[in-house]
């Protein structure tokens, strides 16, 4: 079985393409839901050490809101949707016609709106890549946490880190009305599922 850091550039390209299709579908879903122009950046595939991965998404003590879904079936891994206030406000303005100044002001209603948005985007992402690759994926019920990025990102690291000191993130960012906001959708597959997926697509070079 190939480790994350042993993936060839062709294999990484294929994963980036998968990320691109997933992110594109999530963007379309969000755009339809919000009736807003939603763009996306080219997804990135990164294989980083635990500390570097947290630094890449903003540093350990940055406060973010995270919606987490675990995937099982033929793709074991975690999807994490990280957001900051700029993105949250763009959404809340549309859904609840309100804005918040800080994370402390998130009430039950706001939280359930954000969980639902995250859920729909993650589901569209997974259903697109499941259709594309023919793999069967089951999703958990989404959970949300507003806290330090380091604590939130340690969850997939702990879950997937038993046999490795690295984590693979396939991440896409979204643009709301052409403005870049902090809104990162991450797919983190476990090593075994990654090998299975690449083999199934006929690109795994063993």
């Amino acid at each position: 079985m190939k480790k994350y850091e042993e993936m060839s550039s062709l294999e990484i390209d294929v994963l980036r393409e998968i990320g691109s299709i997933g992110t594109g579908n999530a963007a379309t879903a969000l755009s339809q839901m919000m009736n807003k122009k939603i763009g996306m950046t080219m997804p990135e595939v990164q294989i980083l050490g635990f500390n570097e991965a947290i630094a890449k998404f903003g540093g350990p003590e940055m406060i973010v809101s995270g919606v987490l879904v675990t995937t099982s079936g033929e793709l074991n891994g975690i999807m994490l949707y990280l957001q900051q206030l700029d993105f949250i406000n763009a959404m809340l303005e549309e859904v609840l016609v309100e804005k918040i100044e800080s994370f402390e002001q998130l009430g039950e209603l706001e939280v359930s709106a954000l969980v639902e948005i995250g859920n729909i985007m993650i589901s569209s992402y997974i259903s697109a890549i499941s259709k594309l690759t023919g793999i069967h994926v089951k999703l958990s019920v989404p959970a949300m946490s507003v806290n330090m990025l380091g604590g939130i990102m340690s969850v997939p690291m702990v879950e997937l880190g038993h046999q490795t000191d690295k984590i693979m993130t396939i991440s896409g960012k979204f643009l709301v009305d052409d403005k870049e906001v902090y809104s990162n959708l991450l797919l983190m597959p476990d090593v075994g599922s990654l090998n299975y997926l690449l083999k199934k697509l006929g690109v795994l070079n063993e």
Partner: protein
Amino acid sequence: MSEKQLVVGIADMKICRGPQKLITYALGSCIGICLYDPMIRLAGMVHIMLPNNMEGSNSNVFKYADTGIPATIKKMEIFGGVKSRMVCKIAGGARMFEVQPNSSIGNIGQRNVEAVKKALAKEGIRIAKEDVGLNYARTLLLDAETGAAVVRSFGRKELVL
């Protein structure tokens, strides 16, 4: 702050002497273990992720409670620390997400706490103070001058252990 702060990363360990400080950021289900020998003002901190090392000897020992704690104590002993004088404080072991159905994500924090306590008991070290569990991340700072540990978290008061 004029004193130097040494950053302990995830699955990492560092030791220092006063007036330096050790800091580890945003412990989620991970646990930060502070060990302090007050006589010589020697401080050690390890940031573990998982309870038990099943990878074998070529892995990073500081990733696991059962191998990280003895390795930290050994390192401190090399620098003159004495186990019987060591004071221990721990923080972390939270449950960041309520994931349904109950998966391993839900209780890894709790399992880490149990493994840390077991590893410390094996070394004969008592935990003087702890701030573990619940559902939020903690930043842990250990002052090698005084042995005081400070826990910082989002939306809560700073806590001195």
